[in-house]
């Protein structure tokens, strides 16, 4: 484990944009060690023993919530899940009071998923525990950003000069905003494509190259990140039909062949097979979608470990 003088102790993790390259590297390097722990027969270490973590989820989630829970448990923390559908939130409790309530129980970290942009920043302003943003509206999803970076590294790719193609619903996607910010920070060349109704009007301000044809974004790409299309978008008039979307913007084997031969395919899940991603592409060798899930646990272990201990007890996990 590389020693580093950067520390994330006590830091709220709201987005990747506000982290330095060194801090990003620290998380990614720590995650390498964490993945080794995950692979052990007895995958539990005492690094976070005596720490409590609350997963506060205002939106449905399988992989993010479960992997944060396992990440905490693998490190020995006590993890409690609050799903707002069965909490005081249904009685109308406001976010300030919910955050103050969990703080009063002396939790050390709150992992929060919320449908509104900026909700994690708002929570961080209110409360003392470490806030880890597990997705706030269309803004950011930093742990997803880290797991994607980890997966890209694991596939033997570094970022500098790579062509990254992000395809689909950029407008509503926190994954897109997170990856654009993260990959640009690491020196990659980011391209986006999809229906223009699903692009922010001033997308160029994000420093990406915009294509109206997915083929142009895919041409020579090293990494292909396919965003999930939510079916509600079609009902709200943003594209005419799933059929047309799949035909014009979906990634199938023929289109994927435009990318580099060793390109990898990412998808934050859950997939709409046959819509944004064809069945074949979803399960091809280039698809790292299951690796993303596994790496998600490792990077979340790293985030919890670094923010709650500052990496001080690093010896205990060697």
């Amino acid at each position, binding site marked *: 484990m590389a020693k580093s003088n950067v520390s994330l102790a006590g830091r709220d993790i709201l987005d990747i944009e506000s982290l330095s390259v060194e801090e990003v590297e620290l998380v990614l390097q720590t995650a390498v060690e964490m993945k080794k722990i995950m692979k052990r027969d007895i995958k539990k270490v005492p690094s976070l023993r005596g720490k409590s973590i609350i997963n506060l989820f205002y939106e449905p989630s399988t992989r993010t919530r479960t992997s944060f829970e396992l990440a905490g448990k693998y490190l020995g923390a006590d993890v409690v899940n609050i799903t707002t559908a069965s909490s005081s939130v249904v009685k109308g409790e406001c976010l300030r009071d919910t955050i103050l309530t969990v703080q009063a129980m002396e939790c050390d970290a709150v992992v929060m998923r919320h449908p509104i942009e*900026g909700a994690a920043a708002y929570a961080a302003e209110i409360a003392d525990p470490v806030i880890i943003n597990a997705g706030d509206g269309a803004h950011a999803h930093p742990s997803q950003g880290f797991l994607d970076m980890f997966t890209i590294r694991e596939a033997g790719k570094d970022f500098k000069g790579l062509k990254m193609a992000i395809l689909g619903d950029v407008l509503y996607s926190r994954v897109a905003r997170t990856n654009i910010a993260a990959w640009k920070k690491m020196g990659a060349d980011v391209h986006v494509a999809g229906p223009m109704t699903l692009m922010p009007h001033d997308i160029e301000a994000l420093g990406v190259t915009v294509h109206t044809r997915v083929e142009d974004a895919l041409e020579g790409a090293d990494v292909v990140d396919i965003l999930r299309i939510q079916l509600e978008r079609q009902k709200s008039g943003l594209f005419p039909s799933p059929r047309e979307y799949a035909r014009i913007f979906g990634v199938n084997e023929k289109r994927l062949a435009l990318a580099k031969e060793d390109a990898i395919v990412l998808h934050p899940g859950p997939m709409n097979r046959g819509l944004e991603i064809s069945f074949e592409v979803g399960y091809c060798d280039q698809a790292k979608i299951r690796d993303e899930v596994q790496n998600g646990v490792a990077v979340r272990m790293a985030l919890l470990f670094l923010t709650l201990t500052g990496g001080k007890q690093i010896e205990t996990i060697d």
Partner: protein
Amino acid sequence: MKLLIKGGRVVDPSQKLDAVMDVLLEDGLVKEVAKEIKTKVDETFDAKGLVVAPGFIDVHTHLREPGLEAKEDIVSGTKAAASGGITTIACMPNTKPIIDNSIIVSGIKERAAREGYVNVEVIGAISKGEESKELAEMIDMTEKGAMAFSDDGHYVKSSRLFTMAAKYIAPFDKVLISHAIDHELGGEGYMHEGAVSARIGVPGIPAISEDIAVSRDCIIAEYTGAKVHIAHVASKGAVEIIRQAKARGVKVTAETAVHHITLTDEACASYSPATRVSPPLRSQDHVDALREGLKDGTIDAIVTDHAPHAPEEKDVEFRNAPCGFCGLETSVGVILTELFHKKLFTINEIVDKMSTAPANIFALKSGNLKVGSPADVTIIDLDKEWIVESMQFYTKGKVTPFEGKKCKGKAVATIVAGEIVMRDGVLCTK
């Protein structure tokens, strides 16, 4: 009651007056304005080194009474106005119930006369319940003293209804105020659509949602010959459309709000609920166009769009925050700091935009210091430095995007109908 304001710099754009003079107020009216007035008075106000201006008029205020007194009421709202140096406010009709009949118009005017600290003009609704379906009784409300009509908070969605309203009211010379925003186009957006919204992931409201609505209402004003006033103009497209309409002789006037000419959408990057407002804070190119529009007369007036909310309503996530914030106690300071001290506008221009011009648009007697006019005066210390601390405000809606702002320039006295209602930030007991 005779009050002599001695030795101040009298700025009255209506008379192109800018000179050190004395102003004598008597029995609620301006009695004399001259170099040296020597007469026996009840009180003398030493205005040496201060600007003496016709009382500031804010034609876009939400007093929230009746029905929404948790946000504001006539007493707290008029106290805030007096404290901010504003002598007349016009209140919008989107209360609960809506101000859409003469009984409510009379009721507000009577209560304001009895309990208020400043003059209150009432804006009645254009359509019953602001529902954009049937015309409200505008002539009846006019007879009971309504100043103008608006469905503020809502765009009059029906082009037919807005046309009928304009035709109906034109012979009575009343102004329709248009809250010109095509909200449907804005969709789920809750901040300005632009580089900042793209970056922070907040759904954007395109500026053309204003341009489209302003276009329609300029066209209806032209067709009917009615007077239409465009509320809170915030987009560069709208400025250009109004400029063209005015050039054609259309009876259209326009206002912009203090925050739209002094803040940009960068203020929203922190997701602060205090920055949520409709129309939204826009980007610098829009701010520049608005200032240019003010300069060349396309935009006639500066308003506060004082829209207070109860603290718990604003203490929520950005998206869940209601639109608007308080403005009566910040407008003079912010405008002097950002427009006067940065040498973009003269004090004469500012007094015009915040007093004389709005009075002219709505045919109010105030807005000037001519002999015989109402004795409403705002006295300003251009160099007084102060910091915005909303907890010190009189308004109930203690949320503002200007919190903590260092200001230079402040109203140090407010005189309504010849009586001092505020002096050095302290209200005189009523």
